[in-house]
Structures are given as C-alpha cells and as structure tokens.
C-alpha cells in the first residue's frame, strides 16, 4: 500500500525544466531510495513533495489526500517531514532545543506529555544526543549533527520521513552509523524516502529504488533488481564492463 504517490510531476528550477514527468510511489513501512547523479533532480523532487518548490503540473498524493503545493509547515502537521541536505541544524541553539523545535507544531497545539515521551525515545535511539543535550548544536561532529537532524525531524512524529543526502560530508564510519539508524527507523515503522548519491550504500538498506537521470526516471525496481542491473552497476557502482 503506497503512502506517497507522485504522478507526472513537472517542475522548473532556476529557469530550467528540472523534472519532466516524474511518477513514483513509496510503500508504507519501506525504505524507497531515489538515486542519481548530482543535478539529476533528486532534491527538486523532495522540495516539490515538501511544498518548497511548486510543481508546474502533476500531483502529490499523501495518504490518499492531494497535498500538492501545501506549505511545509502544513505538511509537517500531516506527518511528512524532511531532513534537509547538509543537516541544517540550528547551530547556536542547544541540542535539546533543536529537538524540541522539531516538535514545534505539536507543542504549539499543546501536545506536551506525548512530545516529552518521544524525546525520551529519540534519545534512546540516538544516545549521543542525550549526552550532548545541553551543548550547542554547532559544536557537534558531522555525524552527530546528522543524528540530530534526523532526531529533530522525528520529533514531529512523521509517518513519512524524507532524507536528503544523509551521507554527504560524512566520514565512512559516521556514514555507516547513520545508515544503521535509518534501518532501525524502518523497524520502528517509519516510512522513508531516501535521496542518495551513494548508490551502493542506499541500495544495501532500501527495499525499492528509482534511478533518476536529468529530470527523468530511467529505472525502477526492487533493490535486488537494481543491484544486478548492468547500467546501474556500470554507471553508479563503478564496475567495469568485464565485471558486469
């Protein structure tokens, strides 16, 4: 059953047509990977879903509801939250305040006790955030900041989490740790749409994947299918013709 469905999305970015008729879906409880090179349009897709970039045509359906063009803060309330590329934590605020701001709309509605329970749970999932609770977020390492960015998004209690390049700028150890956490989130029942340049790492944890090239979907399938696809192996996994 698909929680998110995009049909025939076209969108412009910086005067260019960045997306040409994109259709995709993300199944409930799965990790769906959106793969492709830099500039293929992956982030633009996320920004269309999140209401940051209005599409020129097409529809975004979330949980059987048309959410095309809704503002980001409305989408967060509906259970759709993005972890932006480059982490974008609030560096001058404490780790704890960053997490609480993730629950801004829930706290605004007066959901206090549930939010504090979730804070506990997220600190269990990311123990490093509990230890650093009162530190300024800007003083964390890159990997810790990525955990914080994910934790902050989880504080909105999302049903669908959009992850934009969670591995970017991270050392291999930190990256492996982040990907383990993403898998753990799926076990907890969160549906995930994962945008990644690191194709092999993404395909190792994802259930299904899409490959995007210059604004168009060129491939779609289960991760096993994609991993064994000749073009994917050659273009994204660095295999030679002989190995393929």
């Amino acid at each position, binding site marked *: 059953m698909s929680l998110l469905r995009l049909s025939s999305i076209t969108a412009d970015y910086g005067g260019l047509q960045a997306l040409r008729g994109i259709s995709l879906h993300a199944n409930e409880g799965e990790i769906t990977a959106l793969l492709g090179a830099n500039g293929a349009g992956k982030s633009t897709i996320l920004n269309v879903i999140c209401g940051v970039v209005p599409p020129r045509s097409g529809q975004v359906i979330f949980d059987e509801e048309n959410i095309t063009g809704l503002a980001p*803060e409305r989408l*967060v309330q509906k259970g759709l939250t993005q972890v932006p590329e480059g982490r974008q934590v609030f560096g001058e605020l404490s780790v704890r305040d960053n997490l609480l701001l993730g629950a*801004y709309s829930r706290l605004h509605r007066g959901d206090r006790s549930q939010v504090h329970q979730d804070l506990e749970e997220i600190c269990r999932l990311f123990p490093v955030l509990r230890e650093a609770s009162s530190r300024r977020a800007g003083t964390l390492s890159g990997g810790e900041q990525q955990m914080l960015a994910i934790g902050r998004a989880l504080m909105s209690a999302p049903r669908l989490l959009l992850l934009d390049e969670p591995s970017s700028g991270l050392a291999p150890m930190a990256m492996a740790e982040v990907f383990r956490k993403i898998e753990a989130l799926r076990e907890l029942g969160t549906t995930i749409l994962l945008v990644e340049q690191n194709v092999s790492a993404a395909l190792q944890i994802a259930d299904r994947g899409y490959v995007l090239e210059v604004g168009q979907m060129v491939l779609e399938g289960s991760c096993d299918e994609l991993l064994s696809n000749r073009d994917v192996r050659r273009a994204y996994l660095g295999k030679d013709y002989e190995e393929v």
Partner: protein
Amino acid sequence: MSLADQLLQYLITGVSVGMVYGLVGLGITIIFNATGIINFAQGEFVMLGGMIAVALTAARLPLAAAVILAVAAVTMVALVTERLAIRPLRGASVIPLIIATIGVSLILQGGAKLVWGPEAVRLPAFSGEQPIRIGGGGIDPQRLWVMGLAALSVAAVQLFFKYTLAGKAMRACAINRAAARLVGISIDRMVRLSFAMSAALAALGGVVLTPVALMQCSQGTHYTLTGFLAAVLGGLGSGLGAVLGGILLGIVESLSAGFISSGYSKAIALAVALVVLWWRPEGLVRRRQA
C-alpha cells in the same frame, strides 16, 4: 551647579533617551532577524505611542490605562501594517520590502499629522514633576521611569528568546529560515510576532519618554534613523548590542547638547557612530557564528 552635577544630569538624560533609541534598535533587530528586512517605520511606532497616549489622557482616561491602551493600539497598527504592506510582498526580495516600510512610515506620519496637527504635545509625568535631589542638581523622576521600564522590557525580551518555545522558534528562523520552515515553524506567524513585539517596545518607549521629551508627528523619522544606527552599532543581529548602541548614541547626543550646542548634537552623535563603525565595522557586540 557644579560641573560634576551637570555631568550627572546630562548622563541621566542621555541614558534615558538612549534606552528608548535602544528599544527602537532592539525592535529593528527583532524584525531583521525574523525577516531580513529593515523596518523603516519603526520610529513611527514611537511617535504613535506618544501621540495616542496623549489623546487618550486628553479624553480623560486615567494615565495607566492610557499607557497600556496606547501600547496595545500601536501593536495593532503594526499587525495591520504587516498584513497590508509586508505579507502581500511575500517572496519579493528585500529591497521592495524595505521600500514598503518607508511607504508605511510616510503614511503613518501623514495620517498622524491629519489627526493631531503638527504641534508638539506633552503627557503628564507618571509620578509628579518634583525633581529628586542628588548633590547640587535634581533628577526628573520620569527619567527613572524611562530607564526602569526600558530595562524591564529588554530583560523580558531576553527571557522570551531564551526560555519560550516561540522565542526559540524565532531564533531558529534567524539562524536558518529554510530549515525552520522544514521543521514546521510557520514563518508567517514568526513575522507577525516580530512586528507585534517590536511595535510594543517602540510604543512603550514613546509613551514613557513623552512627558520629558515631548512628542510631535514628525519625530518618528529621528527615532527610526537613530534606532537603525543603534542596531548597526550593535552589530545588526544582536538585541543587546542594539540597546548598548542606543545608550551610547543617547549619551553622546546629550553631552554634546549640554557642552557644545544642541544644534549640533545629532550630527555629533552620527559622527561618533561613524568613528565607532570605522574602528569596529562588525559592531560593538560580535555575533556568534552558527
């Protein structure tokens, strides 16, 4: 009166006027942090605060009620301003927005002149006119009201930003507006809140200063420019820096009016501000990097 007594007088005058400049600068900083624009109508909120309080006392309202109602009314004016002049330009770049605030300031100034005329008006002092004697001179008790209420407001604003969810959300907006949107913070609400807060601060400054400094419809511009200068001196982004900048400008203005000439006091304050910025282009308070 000895020189020391005179100096004390000028300092108290300077600090009290300077704290009102500081309140204006703090308001300009709050709006700048939330929206990235400089609100050039900020000084008109000072003027409106004073004029409305005078009109309300003239209508025989008790002074305390007039003060509170004047601040509330100016806050409403700011919210209407935001709705009619700022929100329709959402998505526009910073320059059209700044020009819109200049338009708002002209409208408010012109409107005030139509209603109240160009003359200077005065509000009764909050607790009598009898000066408090210190040494050979005396302090107007209203000056203590100005300093006390301004200091309280600044402290309240600091606590708001440090401890409340809305305050933290506004700081998050200032640090990274795109990320703040993505976590679900409504930027529109933050912008409204910033206008309401900064208008209330400016109006309070205007109301409390009117018994000692008089008020007239054309004075808003002076408060805007001096408040803007105070915000820039403070490093444009630091609220406490803006308050310090305002106090510095008030002291320079008062000392030069007392010892040199009142005709040159504003020019001298401007010159000192330029020298300070030449010496520290980043302002008096260094902003912490994100």
